[in-house]
């Protein structure tokens, strides 16, 4: 991927640095993986912003705790089972 020149320049560490964060992507990321990241980020964000959480709870007629719990659960497999590898290729 990276040329020889790239390997020694000042930006060589940038990608390495970025890769340390979960949720960052790369050129070979599939649609599914990206979507999973988006979903997890979204749930984390909803849970972190109480007003949004209470809004969802009101709309679904559930307690806030229940909504929070179900969202945490959904973070496990937010987009279902990953597709077979062949599909990508």
């Amino acid at each position, binding site marked *: *991927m990276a040329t020889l*020149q*790239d390997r020694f*320049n*000042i*930006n060589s560490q*940038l*990608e390495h640095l*970025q890769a340390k*964060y979960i*949720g*960052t*992507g*790369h*050129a070979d*990321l599939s*649609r*599914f993986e*990206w*979507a999973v990241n*988006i*979903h997890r*980020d*979204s749930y984390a*964000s*909803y849970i*972190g912003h109480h007003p949004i959480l209470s*809004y*969802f709870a*009101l*709309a*679904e007629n559930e307690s806030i705790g229940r909504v929070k719990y179900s969202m945490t659960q959904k973070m496990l497999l937010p*987009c*279902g*089972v990953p*597709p077979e590898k062949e599909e990508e290729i």
Partner: protein
Amino acid sequence: MDEREQAVRSKMQSYTAPKSVTGDLPTEDGEDESGFKRPGRITDREDDYRRRRLQRMLSPSRNDAFAMGDKTPDSSVRTYADVMRDQQLARERDNTMQNIADKLRKEEEERELDARPTKASGVQLPPPPAQLPPPAAKSAASGEKRRNRWDQSNGNADTKKARVLEWDAPEATPAVARWDATPARPDEFGATPGRAASRWDATPTPGRTGTEATPRRNRWDDATPTPGRVDPGATPGWAPGETPAVGATPAGKRGRSRWDETPVGVGMGGGATPMMGQTPMMGMTPAMTPMGGMDMPTPSPSSLPKVPLTAEQYQTMRMEREIEERNRFLSDEELDSMLPTEGYKVLEPPAGYAPIRTPARKLMGTPTPIGGTPLYHVPEEEHGQTFDVPTQLEGLPELKPEDHQYFGKLLKEVEDEQLTVEEMKERKIMKLLLKVKNGTPPQRKSALRQLTDKAREFGAGPLFNQILPLLMSPTLEDQERHLLVKVIDRILYKLDELVRPFVHKILVVIEPLLIDEDYYARVEGREIIANLSKAAGLATMIAAMRPDIDNIDEYVRNTTARAFSVVASALGIPALLPFLKAVCQSKKSWQARHTGIKIVQQIAILMGCAVLPHLKSMVDIIKHGLTDDNQKVKTITALTVSALAEAASPYGIESFDDVLEPLWKGIRLLRGKVLAAFLKAIGCIIPLMDAMYASYYTKEVMVVLVREFQTPDEEMKKIVLKVVQQCVATEGVEPTYVRAEILPEFFRSFWVRRMALDRRNYRALVETTVELANKVGCADILGRIVEDLKDESEPYRRMVMETIDKVVRDLGTADVDARLEELLIDGILYAFQEQVSDDANVMLNGFGTVVNSLKMRAKPYLPQICGTIKWRLNNKSAKIRQQAADLIARIAVVMKACDEEKLLGHLGVVLYEYLGEEYPEVLGSILGALKSIVNVIGMTKMTPPIKDLLPRLTPILKNRHEKVQENCIDLVGRIADRGAEFVPAREWMRICFELLEMLKAHKKGIRRATVNTFGYIAKAIGPQDVLVTLLNNLKVQERQNRVCTTVAIAIVAETCSPFTVLPALMNEYKVPELNVQNGVLKALSFLFEYIGEMGKDYIYAVSPLLEDALMDRDLVHRQTASSVVQHMALGVAGLGCEDALTHLLNYVWPNIFETSPHVVNAVMGAVDGCRLAIGPAIILNYLLQGLFHPARKVREVYWRLYNSLYIGAQDALVACYPRLENDGINPYARQELEIFI
């Protein structure tokens, strides 16, 4: 003071040490040449003690008891029992030798007494030898017992041979000791216990056979080299203790005994590794004793077929030859050709004249020098042996001359098919090691990886048998050792339990690292031993090191103790405690106890407060050592207690309860070194106690301490000082007690001139005195030493001054009364005036500290001080002038505080007059002094007036000396900042031109001060003129100069508001010149960085310029413009400039595909800046176009940008991700966001 006295005094000032002494001062030559230490051989920097590592032997590999299971180890393998027996033997041998030596000495003394009968009257004769049962009997007995095959005299070797073979028949189990099997029979050894009878004395190590001319025929001499043994590696150096009679039974005795296996076997491959300590041993036929063999001329290299000399030997010989050649006597023909024929007469030598030629040289001299002139020496052709030509093997790094003995095999051309598997492996390892040792970094890296990966395949034996001898090589360099140690470290991980048989060998090589002077070598050594103990396990480590614990050699015991402490830290202290307990109570030898206790000491030093959980048990293990019979054991025990106390501080006093009593008894009874150690222990324990006990014990110990104040022993002095310091620092000790009991004696014994001469004593004494002052107050101490400021020894005065400096800095001068104050100033003035040495800092600091601490009280003395300063500013010696100026800088603040402005002004005028100073160091100090005066009295009151002062400074700005530049620019900057109005604008412009030159300065501080000064000047006289100067400077070629100019422009813009600068700056962009345009952009970049949110008013103004720059063909234009955008965006984030920034972002965006790293950096920065200013949503929308682009190159760039966006604004992105549709299999939609009430 009469005239004569004054004359003497004035002369005294110029008295210094003679040139010959000062010239001899060690300078760190070589190091300051390039700033890097040149790689040096380790042996060159080692002292004799450390060099003893080379005398250690790599013992044969040992039995791995774990791998054997229940089987009896086969006889060829050395087991723990064997090693222990050898050790025992060595110790007994040592004892015997000691006894013999004692006896001989006694006899000698007796003989002397007998020879002088007059003295015998009233003097009882020592008992005759027959009445000396212990040594004599013991030596006989042990001689008998230890009689074994290497002790037989050489004369009847043949007759003994049969028997030798008999005993050496392979034994069933190694438990049947060969040594003990010797039948008792009358022998020469017992009968003639004299030194000559023993071979040990004559030839302690085989390596030394060469240097000591042994008159006896050595059996090595007899050996006819068998074909198998011609190979240099094949004659390993065995230490005598284990040297078998190889020579006597030349070849074909393979199965004879375990000892003989290796020497006859293949070169380096055998289980035994040769001892490397002595170079000549390698590569020498047994019959040859080259260096010391005085009775035969050294053969020239060519006459020794197939026996390669080591590199050193070869070099030495060549050097010798060359010296001979150059210093040879001139022949008649040569003299004729050199001297003119006329005017000279050839005289006959006197009748009795015989030329003296040094016989040694003659013997050593080569019969005929090879080739004529040594310079053009062409060695005779040799087969398979080259000396000077750097050997280059294909794909391998260069061989150094000293590498030949290890890697020589690689030089031989061999067919792969002819080699056995083992040989192939050996060659492979050799090649890899050579690459690691001498190769380039990539070669080294790949070789290291291969060695690591294939470690188990190669096996531990072949690997270590090659690595370890290399590490013992006397020519090893630091870097090479580091690399080889790294190899060991890596393969340790891979080999794991396979290393067990080699543990001791590895330790022999690694232990010396633990006492290396280089910190990193020590750390490296610790790491290896820690890894080794994890790989081999505790039992193996103990088994390997146990025999060394009571080795007769102190070096071995010392390093072993250190290694054990590392094992303890790696495997945990509790695991080692039972073993340590046993060792420390060993009845067999005091050495074992000593080493055991030393291990505890080393553990304490190594692990620090981590010993706390085990403190009690560790103290219990060693406590009996305090009452041991042996002095050395006592000493080390006391030192260990102090190490433990120091490590545990401030906790754990309860663990030391048991040792307090013996320590107490000890300090009353003991004397000398042991007492010093005991005192040290107590000194370390007292700070752990609570106040009441500490006070009690301090009083107890002080009696002894005070007595020891007078000791002449340096070590004792240091310890006493340290203990006093520790005792006094504890809480419970009362000031009154210290004042009454300690101070008088302390000052009488320690405050003497001699203490100032040794650096370490000096430090210790100053520290202790400061500690005493902390307890009893400043005035007490000052009162005692203040008189000494007038002492005649300068080092002593300096020590007094440093103490006063520290005490006053810590405690102030509140309790100093008027009389003392007077004495103090008087003394300081005297000391200041009398100093002649180079290091003036101590005196200056002391003077400054005292005067500053006295504050208002210093007022009466200021006229006198200023008088002195004025007088000294006029001195002939530059150093004295400099000190005087430096002193002004230090006391200016106090003078202001004492309302001595008139005096200050006067000093200002004096300094002004000295601005013509020619020594730059002095000029720098004078400028510094002026600066401090200007700072305290202000611009308006300054004398000389600023308008006179500044024009005088302008030419000084041209001075290229760093100290002058720095002080001058500081002063000018100060004036420009505070008093610019006193100087006409024309003068400031002139200064501006001078300042441009200063932008070239090497020191960053000067450049920064210069740039700031531009700002002040621009503020003072308006930016236009300054700006013109600066913009013109953008045209210069030098990059650093341009960069500094752009910074200056930006600063001018910041201080005078951007609108005064921007029009001219943007106008300058029209100049069709690359450097100027880039300079303008760079200035804009700094400008927007500095002005921050002020930039929002100027964005629209500079946008067209940036558009142009971002579309320029030149890469640097786009790069710099991008960084302008970045700084601009960061400055105006949240201030409503989104429209302009979006517009600029559109120009920046196409540059994301650039590949030059600096451009990539700048563009990423610009995009990041825009993320902040215009929000992540817009950037995300830009990015969505390319995240799943068919071209990978595009996707890579886009994902990189996405990642930095994501990391910067993860939460905010949730709201703006694209809507995803379910694809029938996976639910992709985020339904929650569709909820609507």
